[in-house]
């Protein structure tokens, strides 16, 4: 029920947007009235409604942060069990 998928807003018409979910899936009629989204931004879509605008920079920042703090961590081998 709380499944949500990220997608990129392609165009906006009033309360509704055309959203590209990647891999060839584009949907029209996604309701964006609960968020302040602009074309080109990423939104998280749940049951036909965008529930949040995704912060692309934050996504990259989190990864860079972990790559940095784990730079000298040795990779573990095969799973322990």
């Amino acid at each position: 029920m709380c499944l949500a998928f990220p997608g990129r807003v392609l165009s906006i018409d009033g309360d509704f947007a055309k959203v590209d979910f990647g891999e060839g899936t584009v949907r029209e009629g996604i309701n964006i009235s609960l968020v302040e989204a602009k074309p080109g931004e990423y939104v998280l879509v749940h049951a036909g409604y965008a529930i949040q605008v995704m912060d692309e920079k934050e996504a990259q920042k989190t990864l860079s942060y972990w790559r940095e703090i784990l730079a000298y961590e040795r990779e573990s081998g095969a799973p322990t069990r």
Partner: protein
Amino acid sequence: MTVSSILDGYRDAVLARKLQARISRLSAEIGRRILIMHVCGSHEWTITHHGVRSLLPENVEVRAGPGCPVCVTPATDIDAAVDLALEGKALLTYGDMSRAKGSKQSLAEAKTLGGDVRVVYSVHDAVNIAKSRPEKEFVFFAVGFETTAPATAYEILEGPPPNIHFLTSYRYVPSAVEAVSRSPDLRVDAFINAGHASTITGMKAYKPCFDECHKPMVFSGFEPLDVLMSAAMILTQIRDSDPKMENEYTRAVTWDGNLKAQETMQKVFDLHDGYWRGVATIPNSALDLRAEFSNLDARDHYGLKTMPDGADFVRDARCADVIIGKIDPPECPLYMKECTPTSPLGPTMVSSEGTCKIWADHKIMSTMRCRI
């Protein structure tokens, strides 16, 4: 930049192995069993599908808590929906909800008995169907958490047509986390909080609970590395005896959450005590329609029974213990015997967010973990 190019980084195998090494080191330093509970069916799917548990050391257990809305929808509400469908009203609901049994039947079974039951993708579709058939009475069986409630609130504020009523069974996750954190027999050490529900409420909704329980709480995304990063953050907090509320899912969750969605939701719903199927009545955990919208409330309009009557699950089924996170599915005597995805007896085997259904789909027949 595409969606997948951003998320690919959260599936990076090298980073995963480094995280695994860090987690192993932290857990060895802690040197005791740690039980981490998450409260979201989508987290359970990520963890099971990507085999995250197999990457964790023996003494770190991640268990699913009450994170499946379909599973906790009271049997009496499903019964009421089934009765309305059999009386000739057209019942509209989400796919998972149509397959969960009440005390007798599911809505899907009511359909085979001649009931008019239709699966919709969104509340907007439900309203449009009602608009297209003004001569027919429709009921939207509205279930979910605060992730889903704002959309229904939006449609209600837009003014739905007079031939649709709402049978709501919305539940509020922060109150359930509070109840779990107070449970003496669960002994949860830390929480991975629900990512999507928290995009709406923000982290702030969990502050009172954190102030009371002082257990690590990490707000996590849904890629496999999100969960590993969250586990590493939790274990670091435990090792340093420094519990805090931390955000791993910074790309979607903020401290304040989605204020526009909160405002929309609060205009239409207010919090009341709510029954979680088989679990308990949890204070301030049901998002019910405000009094000014009682004209849209199917309970008022049709005079429906609202109190749970205890007829929750079939005999011997341990759905309630799975929902609250007391046991894993294979500990239920009916799991993959009488109760399977093709012939589910309990809601946890129905919903794509139900722990039993997720484990069954991944053919997990036993758990190798030792119990606390």
